[in-house]
């Protein structure tokens, strides 16, 4: 009986260690979108008044409904990326899901008549999301009867604002080929170089950790601030120490620090925690939230954006 127990315990330990070893890093989502320049050039912008300032934003929905070339390029890129074993989120489907979800939320009610909770920030967050934006632009140059296409593909990290991959160039001028043919050719010509750089970005992520952004803020209801002493040092310094000891090789930079806020950029967090579970910015910042609570009895509200951005507002939840 005792032996059986021992064997089961060892088997359980083995199972836990094996499942840990096969744990996979959190996969970033990628979505293809037309650039603002392309939308503006082709007249797919909407204008709204933001407190007296006219602001133009791209109207993706209209662009997708009216421009068949755009659909062709997005579809071709999606097809080629799926071929490479990395399926992308589709912009059009994403926008349809958002519309459907909004309609459903508006109609949803419980048996008792309660409706779904939605704060203003929840409403603001109801937009198409991706961890990496694949932003593309093309322009057609015409010289006499000849046409050529200049194609630009940029991979932009949604959180760090860095361009992590890119490919661009002008195709050979053609007398006869139609625009869709030239566009397909441009995508085929540039996608491998783009993916080469994307692969390098992923290799860097596996070697040096995921790069994230951490924002620290304070509620105005809290009577303390980040320059107040906690444990013999300013709270800001204590937070900096925690960040330093919980990043890969202590890599981060403090871009901004006042008594009310701190901004940490180029924060390299490990892909897995101590239990070998995949971690993202939120999971990692939870550690800081717990540290502040356990060490200084400070409550903090944790908010996140995708895999790479976390925000802690200190003072209450």
């Amino acid at each position, binding site marked *: 009986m005792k032996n059986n127990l021992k064997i089961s315990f060892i088997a359980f330990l083995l199972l836990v260690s094996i499942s840990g070893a096969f744990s996979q890093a959190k996969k970033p989502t990628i979505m293809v979108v037309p650039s603002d320049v392309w939308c503006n050039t082709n007249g797919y912008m909407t204008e709204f008044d933001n407190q007296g300032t006219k602001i133009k934003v791209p109207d993706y929905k209209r662009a997708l409904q009216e421009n068949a070339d755009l659909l062709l390029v997005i579809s071709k890129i999606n097809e080629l*990326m799926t071929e490479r*074993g990395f399926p992308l989120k589709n912009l059009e489907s994403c926008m349809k899901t958002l519309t459907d979800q909004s309609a459903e939320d508006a109609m949803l009610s419980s048996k008792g008549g309660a409706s779904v909770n939605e704060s203003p920030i929840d409403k603001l967050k109801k937009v198409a999301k991706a961890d990496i934006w694949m932003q593309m632009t093309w322009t057609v140059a015409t010289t006499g009867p000849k046409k050529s296409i200049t194609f630009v593909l940029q991979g932009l990290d949604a959180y760090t604002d860095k361009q992590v991959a890119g490919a661009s*160039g*002008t195709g*050979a001028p053609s007398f006869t080929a139609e625009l869709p043919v030239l566009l397909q050719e441009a995508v085929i010509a540039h996608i*491998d170089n783009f993916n080469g750089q994307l692969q390098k970005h992923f290799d860097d992520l596996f070697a040096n950790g995921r790069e994230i952004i951490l924002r620290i803020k304070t509620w105005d209801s809290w009577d303390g601030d980040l320059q107040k002493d906690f444990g013999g040092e300013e709270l800001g310094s204590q937070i900096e120490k925690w960040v330093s000891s919980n990043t890969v090789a202590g890599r981060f930079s403090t871009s901004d620090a006042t008594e009310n806020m701190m901004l940490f950029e180029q924060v390299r967090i490990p892909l897995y925690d101590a239990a070998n579970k995949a971690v993202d910015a939120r999971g990692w910042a939870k550690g800081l939230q717990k540290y502040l609570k356990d060490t200084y009895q400070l409550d903090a509200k944790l908010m996140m954006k995708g895999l790479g951005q976390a925000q802690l507002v200190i003072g209450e939840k």
Partner: protein
Amino acid sequence: MRKIVNLSSLVLFMILGVSMSVSAQARKKADKDTENFRYEIEGVGVGTQGTYLIKVWSYSKKPVVAIEQAKKNAVHGIIFKGYTGKQGVPGQKALTSNPNLENEKADFFTDFFADNSKYMKFVSVSGDGSIAAEDRLKVGKEYKVGVVLSVNVDALRKDLEAAGVIKGLGSGF
């Protein structure tokens, strides 16, 4: 008379033997050139989906050997070297970014690049395979021959990924 026949047969065998040995030596030298990256690749055009259309310049004392070696050089170059582009045709980077991959996976690549082995699956001669006069150059004692080839990069990449030689874009996630 019989003596003359015997003598001429002997001479014929000797000539045949020498020519075979020269051919074998030329092939060996061509393989060595491939290992030492002694070949040039240039983009010719944007190939069909999943392929690269390239011109490979190979060197040999025997033009036939240079033409045959071009296929090996094409696949070798796509994996390890990449190529630069020209006006209207973008260059492409090598499939691997690991500069030591050839040594690290030496066993795999020895079999892969053996004469008429697996690499042949991913390369084909473009058009009827004829070499234009300007693509056959005599440089010193050697010939420099340019052959236009189509390499099935998608299939090649998938094969290398399946063998664990290179990483896929989604691997690790």
